């Protein structure tokens, strides 16, 4: 009885999803499976092309590195925030989500000002006499990664801090009393206990970076395309809608594979609730 009424309640949501998301998506994606001489030939062609392959590898590399940096920077920050008093926790969380509240174009322009050949960093380096000519920082993979880390770090911090808030001080204290120093106590107790949050944060950052458009467009430029900017170029500039559909499906598959990968990693690392016979 209960189950049936619950099912009735998700029907409106399902209908909206089906009409507005799945149907158009399938209408775009399904034909892409049949274009060309044989089934999936569009996909084979994609991966045979060296230029396309480079874009694919760059996209995955940028997303992976961004996720990695967000974890390295975000997890300790989240722990610090989760240990603060309630008042400070609120203040620090608002500060850390501040980047998310500004427009992504403006945010990227700020980075252009910092990274450009006449930008903040290069002027500092030249004034200090460390380099003679400005370094090429803007329009590189590095610029995309910095911009994406800046963009998605808050997501990691907020997600992980939410999980860490529920870990009592007694966990750290127990580990210390058993002879672990702070770093080891963190690695052996706090980190594994926060893994569910870190995994969710990782998935959000990875998929966010993979699909972001403005940041890679403005900071990577046309020479450093990633899949999302490439889709736009295919569809809007070249008018190659089939090509755009192919890239879209590739991105969806990568996303699903990464989610699956993260989840099985989590299951491997966290054996709780398994078979203990």
């Amino acid at each position, binding site marked *: 009885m209960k189950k049936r009424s619950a099912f009735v309640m998700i029907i409106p949501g399902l209908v909206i999803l089906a009409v507005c998301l799945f149907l158009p998506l399938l209408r775009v994606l399904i034909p892409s499976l049949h274009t060309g001489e044989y089934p999936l030939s569009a996909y084979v062609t994609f991966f045979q092309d060296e230029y396309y392959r480079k874009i694919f590898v760059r996209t995955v590399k940028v997303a992976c590195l961004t996720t990695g940096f967000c974890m390295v920077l975000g997890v300790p920050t989240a722990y610090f925030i989760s240990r603060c008093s309630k008042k400070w926790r609120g203040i620090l969380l608002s500060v850390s989500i501040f980047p998310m509240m500004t427009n992504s174009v403006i945010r990227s322009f700020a980075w252009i000002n910092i990274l450009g050949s006449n930008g903040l960093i290069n002027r500092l380096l030249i004034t200090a006499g460390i380099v003679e000519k400005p370094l090429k920082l803007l329009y590189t993979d590095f610029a995309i990664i910095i911009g994406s880390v800046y963009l998605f770090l808050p997501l990691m911090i907020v997600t992980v801090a939410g999980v860490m808030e529920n870990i009592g001080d007694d*966990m750290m*204290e127990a*580990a210390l*009393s*058993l002879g*672990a*120093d702070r770093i080891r106590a963190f690695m052996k*107790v706090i980190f594994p206990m926060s893994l569910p949050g870190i995994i969710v944060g990782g998935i959000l950052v990875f998929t966010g970076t993979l699909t972001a458009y403005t940041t890679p467009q403005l900071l990577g430029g046309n020479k450093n395309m990633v899949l999302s900017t490439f889709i736009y170029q295919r569809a809007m500039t070249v008018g190659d809608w089939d090509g755009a559909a192919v890239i879209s499906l590739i991105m969806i598959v990568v996303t699903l594979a990464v989610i699956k990968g993260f989840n099985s990693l989590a299951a491997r690392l966290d054996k*709780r609730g398994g078979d203990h016979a």
Partner: protein
Amino acid sequence: MAYMTLKDIDVRYDKKKQVLKGLDLEVKEGELVSLLGPSGCGKTTTLRVVAGFIEPESGVFSLDGEDLTKVPVHKRNFGIVFQSYALFPHLSVYDNVAFGLKMRKLDKGQIEQKVKNILEICGLSEFEKRFPQQMSGGQRQRVALARALVIEPKLLLLDEPLSNLDAKLRINMRMEIKRIQKKLGITTLFVTHDQEECFSISDKVAVMNQGVIEQFDTPENIYQRPKTEFVARFIGFENFLSLKKEGNVYKTEAGAVFTVETVKDGDFVAGTIRPEDIRIAGEKEDHNVLSGTVGVRTFLGKSYQYEVLTAEGKFLVSRPAEEVYEEGSTIRLYLPESKLILVNK
């Protein structure tokens, strides 16, 4: 000779209220000492100073002649059992217990042997593969104890370890803790606010009040000879009368004369006595007597308990069930000098 010493410890939180005020405590090797006191008196704070979670504003904590006041927690080698148990939820019972040994980089064989041994002592051998959330409160309690003991700590610290258990289990567990503590001969500090638990388990009891230790003695002495009114009230004395010293005797404000076995320093003290030690005065008794009116009578099976209203306030008196006094009647209470205890106010 003292093994563990706290000397003149001051602690305040947030630079405001002083929580420990020049606290002194000396514990001998192998002793189980309880900190007993009402909630908020500073028991946990004292234990956290010993553990190293709090550095006192002033004062010295030393163990075996070595000043450890500034030594960080993880270098102290003390076993701590937390009120919440603080078991690691992502580790099995075996790995929880092995945690401290792994931190000490023992080899696998040694770890296994020590873990199995302590699990055996704590009656947990069959649970080593379980996870904490698959166990009952009492079992978790044992795991916490095993985890604290397996590192062969120089001190065992327990903060109200039994307060989350039901009454019957609590009695079992406190016997168990005592047994294991004696078997391993480990010096132990035990925090509790339950006087029965404290008396049954301790070699010595430190009764705390507002950041100082009011009395430090054996359970028997504390029960029979409390030194201050606070200690007496905390361990269940309810009958108090104010006394003023006049030569070798004491007088109440109304002038009633009381003799005692040993006089106490100070002119103004309080006398206290247990309900069952009060007798009914005969004709010839002319001192240590209080007269009063019988109030509410409560039947307790073997005896009746009366509230008697006297010039010194309400007194609880317990008399055998064969003797009955009616409400409203006047009686004379006799407080024998051998049972009347003098305490500082």
